[in-house]
């Protein structure tokens, strides 16, 4: 199949199927219910299972159960629903099972609103649940990239035996763009007999999938093992994109997901007009591209950074950690479901440029 015009939610659903995922457990919540709706039609066609859970708590624990058998499995939700999954997410990290989770972030806190947002950044990158837990977090900026992220999320999850989260937002799942599924290779699921709960079949010792370690030394060792996995992720999985960060770039905007598209337009426009601006786009939010950003911040030409987000300022903490005292980090954000307009961003960036001395 060549390029196809699809809605984000459907593209994400289809990508999961292309990735070999045959099990989906989820609970409706705007703006991403169409992922479930699409898969309720598609899964039976490919011999897979779509099951609507009674809640996000149940969905995440179904996900855990299925993942514990080594099955490729996915769930999706949006902010309030993701909060309800926190306990199971922590169990999954603790029990080291792979799975894919999509969060179409919406405005918060509480019931908030149904429009696009990026205010779950902290939750996604630092605290998917209690305990020292991390998911690899991918932030696609287009439907094509969403498809790629979903398709690579499964092998990534399997590689680390750790859940992978894709943070989209209401815009990404609701819009239509053209997508091409064929450019992403699907991989075969790995052999899971050494750890998964699949029945011993008389061939092996029994497997245990668990997160309880009553002996504190055992739990400490387990924590350190997980930490080593995170270190590996931080070593190997950092992904980012640089747009027009050139020798003369003075102001580097940092933005991800939908916001980055708006910023990209503005940066291109400003460049066209001769302004020395660039865009740094984190593709993985965890692990975050600290090192690369820091390198950039050491350039003489670079006078400052600017974190642009749909929140009151969350990624900016990571940007500041990367840049440290080397250069100032400004902020521009919209909240509550409002996607910054190119005008908004243009004004904010020009203002920041001025602060940096033209």
């Amino acid at each position, binding site marked *: 199949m060549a390029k196809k015009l699809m809605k984000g939610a459907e593209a994400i659903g289809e990508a999961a199927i292309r990735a070999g995922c045959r099990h989906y*457990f989820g609970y409706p919540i705007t703006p991403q219910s169409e992922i479930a709706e699409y898969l309720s039609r598609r899964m039976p066609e490919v011999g897979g299972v779509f099951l609507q859970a009674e809640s996000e708590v149940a969905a995440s624990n179904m996900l855990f159960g299925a993942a514990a*058998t080594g099955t490729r499995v996915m769930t999706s939700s949006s902010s309030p629903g993701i909060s309800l999954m926190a306990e199971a997410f922590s169990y999954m990290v603790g029990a080291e099972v792979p799975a894919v989770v999509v969060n179409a972030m919406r405005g918060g806190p509480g019931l908030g609103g149904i429009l696009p947002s990026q205010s779950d950044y902290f939750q996604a990158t630092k605290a998917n649940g209690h305990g020292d837990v991390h998911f690899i977090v991918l932030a696609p900026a287009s439907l094509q990239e969403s498809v790629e992220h979903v398709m690579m999320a499964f092998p990534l999850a399997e590689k680390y035996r750790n859940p992978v989260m894709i943070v989209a937002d209401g815009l990404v799942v609701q819009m239509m763009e053209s997508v091409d599924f064929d450019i992403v290779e699907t991989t075969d699921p790995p052999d899971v007999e050494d750890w998964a709960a699949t029945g011993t079949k008389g061939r092996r010792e029994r497997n245990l999938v668990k997160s309880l370690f009553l002996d504190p030394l055992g739990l400490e060792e387990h924590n350190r093992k997980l930490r080593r996995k995170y270190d590996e992720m931080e070593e190997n999985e950092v992904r980012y994109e640089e747009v027009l960060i050139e020798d003369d770039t003075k102001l580097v905007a940092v933005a991800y997901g939908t916001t980055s598209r708006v910023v990209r337009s503005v940066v291109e426009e400003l460049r066209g007009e001769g302004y020395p601006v660039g865009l740094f786009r984190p593709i993985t939010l965890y692990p975050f591209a600290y090192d690369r950003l820091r390198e950039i911040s050491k350039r003489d030409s670079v006078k400052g950074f600017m974190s642009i987000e749909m929140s009151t300022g969350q990624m900016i903490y990571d940007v500041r950690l990367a840049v440290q005292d080397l250069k100032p980090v400004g902020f521009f954000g919209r909240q509550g479901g409002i996607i910054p307009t190119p005008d908004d961003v243009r004004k904010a960036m020009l203002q920041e440029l001025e602060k940096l001395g033209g």
Partner: protein
Amino acid sequence: MVTIFTRPDSMFDTPTHYCPGCTHGVAHRLVAEVIDELGIKDKTVGVAPVGCAVLIYNYMNTDFVEGSHGRAPASATGIKRSRPDLVVYTYQGDGDLASIGAAEIVHAANRGEKITVVFINNAIYGMTGGQMAPTTLPGQKTTTSPKGRDVNHIGYPIRMAELLATLKTPGYIVRSSLHDPYHIAMAKKAIKQAFIYQLEGKAFSMVELLSTCPTNWGMTPYQATQWLKENMLQYYPLGVFKTPEDE
């Protein structure tokens, strides 16, 4: 000489962490015997609860998943739906199943998940030190109902077997007891039937087992069995509340 009673094959030869006289040990053995008798050890996956029985996997020689508190039926659903060839059961306490996990058990039963639930009702939170459970009897003292369960404040104990039996979706719902050998034998029959229904792909099944927690009840193990007999049996009548053949 023939050995007519010994530790079942599906159990490891390990002493348990349970308190003396705790009927969790009996329930474990019954499940293991049934697994042995049905020859399904190799394709069984258990889901452990959070409760005193969280370490059940230290004693049962099958694959196991340790669920989160109360959500074992959801995790079992995930397992069974992704691997229908497996025999999947949860083993849950009353705090786990009837309190925090009330939604998950009701919905797993209502969906007719082809899983088996072994439900240990000891009318108390054992593991956390004897707090009130939804199944705690009226007047029963616990660490969070120090003057005894006051039904005017907190309602009557919940009867899960009766509750689930009202669902229209086919199911096998039984209540047995572990307070004496006769009832233990009946309990085993029920557990076996429950697994058979699962193997036949017929229905969700739940076997509620009235159990003792001598430690938190503050009794000797024998006193505990007698207390069960005198108090629990009355409030929690034994019997088959539903079979897949009903209706």
